[in-house]
């Protein structure tokens, strides 16, 4: 379970998270929607400790992410994250990209890491691309590779940061299909997304972020189909 309690986060004088509280249960899929600059992506970076916070706390299965003694490297093995810019490692083949962390972080042998990597790549539909370099892949394929790379660590949680925003429209579908598959498999996921219809279809709950706070949170169909707050209504009107 991920528990976010009254989290505050600033970049210099700019406060981007102004007291956010939220809990995600094991097996749940939560989508976070909201305008640009509302703090959605920043929250994800705080959950796995890539960004420090200035107030509140975040617990992942009871471990305080931002406590001084927390071993973040160990914690991050259990929290996969996929970024808007997929960040493939360009000097490694697709297979090597996915093998790297299992080998060097989990200490697995070459053969075992290869099996794990190949299995996850096949799972996201890249079984034919193992020995190719990322530069030869489309954006959608690179993004699926990034998903496989995160999955190869067998994480308990997956965070997705606008993973389709940088893709050409015709490539969005294949990545969303991959996400849908993971959700069907029972993966616990937090999705920051602009794909409102997709969020409605795959999420258990949806949270609407506005100016650094959660304005509305609830079952996906209610928040998107029948929003209560005027900000949510405005936002959904502008994007749907």
């Amino acid at each position, binding site marked *: 379970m991920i528990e976010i309690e009254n989290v505050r986060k600033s970049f210099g004088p700019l406060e981007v998270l102004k007291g956010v509280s939220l809990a995600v249960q094991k097996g749940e899929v939560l989508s976070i929607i909201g305008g640009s600059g509302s703090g959605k992506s920043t929250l994800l970076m705080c959950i*796995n400790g*890539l960004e420090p916070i200035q107030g509140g706390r975040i617990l992942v299965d009871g471990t305080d992410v931002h406590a001084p003694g927390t071993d973040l*490297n*160990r914690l*991050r*093995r259990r929290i*996969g*994250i996929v*970024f808007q*810019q997929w*960040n493939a*490692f*360009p*000097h490694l083949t697709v297979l090597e990209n996915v093998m*790297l*962390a299992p080998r*060097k*972080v*989990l200490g697995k042998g070459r053969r075992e890491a290869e099996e794990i990597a190949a299995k996850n790549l096949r799972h996201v539909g890249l079984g034919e691309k193992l020995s190719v*370099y*990322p*530069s030869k892949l489309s954006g959608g394929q690179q993004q699926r590779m*990034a998903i496989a*790379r*995160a999955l190869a*660590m067998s994480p308990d949680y997956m965070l997705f940061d606008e993973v389709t925003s940088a893709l050409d429209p015709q490539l969005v579908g294949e990545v969303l299909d991959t996400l849908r598959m993971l959700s069907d498999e029972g993966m616990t996921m937090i999705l920051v997304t602009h794909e409102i219809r997709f969020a409605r279809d795959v999420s258990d709950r949806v949270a609407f972020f506005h100016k650094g706070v959660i304005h509305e949170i609830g079952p996906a169909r209610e928040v998107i189909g029948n929003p209560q707050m005027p900000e949510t209504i405005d936002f959904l009107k502008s994007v749907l």
Partner: protein
Amino acid sequence: MFNYTFHWRPAFNALPRMFEGALVSLQIAVLSLVIGTAIAVVLALGRRSDNRLFYGFATGWVELARNTPALFQVYMTYFGLGSLGIHLDSYASLLVGISFNNAGYLAESFRGGLNAIPETQTRAARSLGMGATQAFRLVVLPQMFRIVFYPLTNQMVWALLMTSLGVTVGLNTDLTGVTQELNVRTFRTFEYFLFAAVIYYLMAKFITLSARLLAWRLFRY
């Protein structure tokens, strides 16, 4: 017009000795590049560091290496360190001097190379549970070496040519040293040094070509 008769035979006879000298030159160049590269990685990090002491040390090294003559640097490691009680022989002081020079020049290339790699690469590596050092070594450094590969090749050629400075600190086993000894014994200056120049040229070409082959083999992405 020419009041000089060429005598090529002694020069041809000296070729085996000169080739031996060439190998010594090449050896010093390779070693100095390896040492220089290792130090340059640290200096490049220093140039990007917030730690003022680390930054100052790296900047001082780079400034000195790039803005003083290589000859001066080799002199300093031989005579300068010698007057401080650290006595290096000719070979060692030449190696140290050129390594110092290599490190200074390469540090700036490496810094540029590191700046060209997006911060998000480190972020992606860290998000997979890698420590800072692991992320640097496994993700950032290999990409940097591709970016700086041609400057690195350049520096290797430079290093080879700089080994000729060894003669100024009494080195007589490298190509220039061997040539100079033959010269003072026979005064066939033109013949010997022409041969030496051709050998340097061929070695430099060899370095450039093998670097190109290596790049083709290494960087397939």
